[in-house]
């Protein structure tokens, strides 16, 4: 290839996109694409763990107000009396927040890198062979889930977009009554639809993410690789079915005040 071309051709030769710099060890690891993918995968595992636990915890909704609110209080009182009340909860939130920020930051860095790696797009339509809908929409499902997360916190943690009544009877956010707040929120059909749509986006994200993290972490064993797809499908299905069941149950009257 290269010999056929005049050596003084100048602009034809590819030029490096990024210059190498010496950095502290962890930043050095993080500065490469493979390093960022490790961060994506590890923080992804943390967040998947949270999503699954969150869904399982919420199943207590079906046991009634008392069980559900008791579970919510249990989370605030985790590791009491080793730690004062809510301290562990805040440490846990701090970890999730860190994982979330790193996940998004790495995704942003990789996206910029990928855009630069093909500065002139294909001018004819591509015919993708194996890339799935999920893998090609990770960026968008990720953004949908992130935006939904803000809504979800404003709705059920801060209560600012929860049902806006003046008393508990006509639909006011009551701090500490997690069960009542969930029911009041999901009784509004547009909100229920929002939760369902966001969870389908989350499931699509997990469908590719769970499969993909094994590659990113270098966990490859030809004997077990065929289980990756099943595991990803399983986790995505369980999370979506569990989470989507809550608004549907409230709208159907299975779970009510």
């Amino acid at each position, binding site marked *: 290839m290269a010999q056929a071309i005049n050596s003084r051709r100048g602009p034809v030769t*590819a030029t490096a996109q990024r210059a190498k710099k010496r950095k502290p060890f962890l930043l050095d690891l993080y500065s*490469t694409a493979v390093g*960022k993918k490790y961060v994506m995968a590890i923080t992804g595992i943390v967040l998947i763990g949270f999503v699954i636990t969150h869904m399982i915890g919420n199943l207590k909704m079906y046991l009634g107000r008392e069980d559900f609110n008791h579970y919510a209080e249990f989370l605030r009182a985790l590791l009491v009396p080793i730690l004062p009340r809510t301290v562990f909860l805040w440490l846990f939130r701090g970890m999730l927040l860190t994982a979330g920020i790193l996940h998004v930051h790495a995704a942003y860095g*990789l996206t910029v890198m990928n855009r630069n790696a093909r500065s002139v797009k294909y001018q004819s339509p*591509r015919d993708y062979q194996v890339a799935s809908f999920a893998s090609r929409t990770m960026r968008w499902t990720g953004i949908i889930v992130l935006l939904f997360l803000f809504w979800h916190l404003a709705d059920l943690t801060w209560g600012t977009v929860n049902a806006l009544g003046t008393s508990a009877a006509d639909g006011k956010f009551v701090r500490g009554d997690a069960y009542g707040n969930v029911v009041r929120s999901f009784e509004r059909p547009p909100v229920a639809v929002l939760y369902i749509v966001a969870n389908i986006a989350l499931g699509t994200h997990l469908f590719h993410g769970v499969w993909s993290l094994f590659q990113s972490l*270098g966990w490859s064993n030809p004997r077990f690789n065929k289980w990756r797809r099943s595991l990803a499908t399983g986790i995505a299905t369980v999370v979506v079915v569990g989470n989507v069941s809550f608004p549907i149950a409230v709208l159907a009257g299975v779970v009510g005040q």
Partner: protein
Amino acid sequence: MIEPHETPHGTQLTNLTLTVWRQKGPNDGGAFESYRIDSISDEASFLEMLDVLNEKLIGEGREAVTFDHDCREGICGTCSLMIDGQAHGPQRGTATCQLHMRKFESNATIVIEPWRATAFPIIKDLMVDRSAFDRIIESGGYITAPTGGAPDANLIPVAKPAADAAMDAAQCIGCGACVAACPNGAANLFTAAKVAHLNLLPQGQAERYSRAEAMVETMDEYFGSCTNHGECEAACPKEISIDVIALMNKDYRKAKFANRKELARS
């Protein structure tokens, strides 16, 4: 008597339209141009079909289409081409040179575009400069062996499964289809194949971790990142598995820690 361009075997495809990317040089904008192929044997290879097109263009006093080709038997990695949106065209496990016209139908329109990646600048028409791959190889895609008398055969025993896995990776011909097919313009399959080929063999162990670190970081300077779409594996004319990418990721992680300890000792 056999007419030129007519073969005793096979059938003729008629009335093909080729939409070919024409670009005068690296800094030209470039555009698609359409050409007619009235008749071509279905036993012609894709590159032979382009030869026929070029004969016709030269006969008409027009400039021939520039495209990369060399061995035409699928082992050199010189040919390229994005054919109807697929790297190396519609047949799996086949380089463009071994793709035959029987994969197409009469009256078809075939769109031919060069590889597109920032690290593969277009030289002319369908020809791109893939020397960024050479930069990756230079940084670690070799073993350092003392010169001198030829060593005894079988001096270093190689386990059969390691030899097989290394051979699978070593099939990479460096054509760049993985980069071309990747929605992110990543070269992970190429780099990982070269890393795996040497890192799986006993001869590659001495430089295993310096190789993994150097090659991954050189790749990083030119190419995008892997998001595990798997398009590279589907496009690869040698059908190299993306399992090698997992191996490269693992060796890179180990390299970062192992090399750091080595540096601390020295």
